[in-house]
């Protein structure tokens, strides 16, 4: 699968990464490389370490050993400016985490104005365009508490896109949503993927995986157990654990 002679660096490169929470080995010897423009879906049972895996990428969690190289920069290296690197990585949370005291537009423009130092008028125009793109042109001045879950998550995606990131990470972006709102969020994610964004998406939405993912990674108990194309993984899972997992989520 890999060519050891050429140590090619992906956009996101895990090399023998381990992480512990106290005595608990939550990431076990993870080696995984995500290419630019690639969409990787991560799935697995609860507690298997999916969130921890993607939270390491933008430094919301730190790793114990192994190397994690993101956009050519090694995390934990004194030369790596983590704050700067984070501006290149959008993160979409399961619970949206919109700023409740700011309107949809202010949520989107906060980081562009304060971190990217884009002039306010310009940032606001870009923010309006982004909100229109995720179908919320009429909610520009709404506060998060005035929006439905699906709308909030679309604002959260627009908030990430406002920084023009190179990578987008999604941690179960639709699992806090009522069923009828899932597709409006997935549609936005598909559009983002089709524009060539490098994405890692923790989700059990197989329709999404089949549509845009190049690869599905299956985790169990902190390790990557199986990795393959969505087609191969869903129709012919190779391990007992992945078969057991799939039979469970398919029943829903």
């Amino acid at each position: 699968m890999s060519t050891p002679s050429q140590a090619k660096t992906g956009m996101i490169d895990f090399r023998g990464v381990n992480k512990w929470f106290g005595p608990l080995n939550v990431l076990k010897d993870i080696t995984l490389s995500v290419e630019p423009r690639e969409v990787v879906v991560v799935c697995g049972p609860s507690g298997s370490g999916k969130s921890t895996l993607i939270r390491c990428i933008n430094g919301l969690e730190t790793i114990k050993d192994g190397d994690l190289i993101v956009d050519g920069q090694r995390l934990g290296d004194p030369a790596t400016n983590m704050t700067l690197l984070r501006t290149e990585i959008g993160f979409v949370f399961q619970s949206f985490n919109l700023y409740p005291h700011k309107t949809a537009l202010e949520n989107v423009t906060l980081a562009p104005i304060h971190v990217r130092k884009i002039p306010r008028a310009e940032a606001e125009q870009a923010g309006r365009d982004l909100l229109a793109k995720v179908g919320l042109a009429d909610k520009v001045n709404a506060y998060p508490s005035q929006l439905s879950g699906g709308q909030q998550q679309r604002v959260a995606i627009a908030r990430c896109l406002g920084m023009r990131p190179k990578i987008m990470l999604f941690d179960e972006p639709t699992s806090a949503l009522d069923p009828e709102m899932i597709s409006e969020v997935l549609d936005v994610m598909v559009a983002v993927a089709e524009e060539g964004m490098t994405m890692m998406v923790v989700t059990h939405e197989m329709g999404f995986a089949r549509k845009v993912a190049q690869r599905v990674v299956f985790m169990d108990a902190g390790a990557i157990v199986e990795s393959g194309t969505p087609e191969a993984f869903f129709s012919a899972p190779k391990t007992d654990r992945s078969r057991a997992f799939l039979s469970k989520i398919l029943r829903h």
Partner: protein
Amino acid sequence: MIWQQLQSLAGSYPLALRGLGMTVMLSLISLVLGTALGFGLGILRTGGNRLISSVIGAWVDLIRGTPFLVQIFLIFFILPEFGIELGAFTAGIIALTNLAACFICEIVAAGIRSVPTGQVEAALASGLSRWQRMRQVVLPQAMRIVLPPLVGQYVLLIKDSSVVSAIGLTDLTRVGWLVVQRVPNGLLVFFLVGVGYFIVCYPLIMLARRLERRMGQAHGEVQL
């Protein structure tokens, strides 16, 4: 008899005004300084540095656990023993500012801790610096929790300022002591002193109540 007393009281009117002025002055200066210091300490207290946090915590406990009268005596009478000479006014300001800062520190720290970690993570993930996270995301949300007890604390501190009369500052309370020597009607004199404090405190009490009511309606941020 009472008529004479009232006349004599009326004659004390300039002194009373001076006392009221001193109380307002002391309270105002030390509340402004104490608020600034208290916010700084509260931010440091929750800032993640264990050593700094526990040093602040210990200091706050010490100040909250000892009588203010003792603190003010220590500052005014003991510090000169170590060669630090302070005027009564400066000593009063230092003692009151320190007291205010300690109470406000705990109020601010509680407010900051009440902001969900997801908020900080979202701000962190979008590349906001530590100060930007505090200024743009954490503090505006913490203010909801902070404001009502903060204003309530102001009222307590204005009343605590009466203790500075013990080191000879002519504040409202001390004016009471002075006047009562000429007008031997303690009930009447200190009733009027109480009215003086109440006039200063009552608007703040109303403000605290108003803020408390507004909490429910705000979108996580409070506009006065």
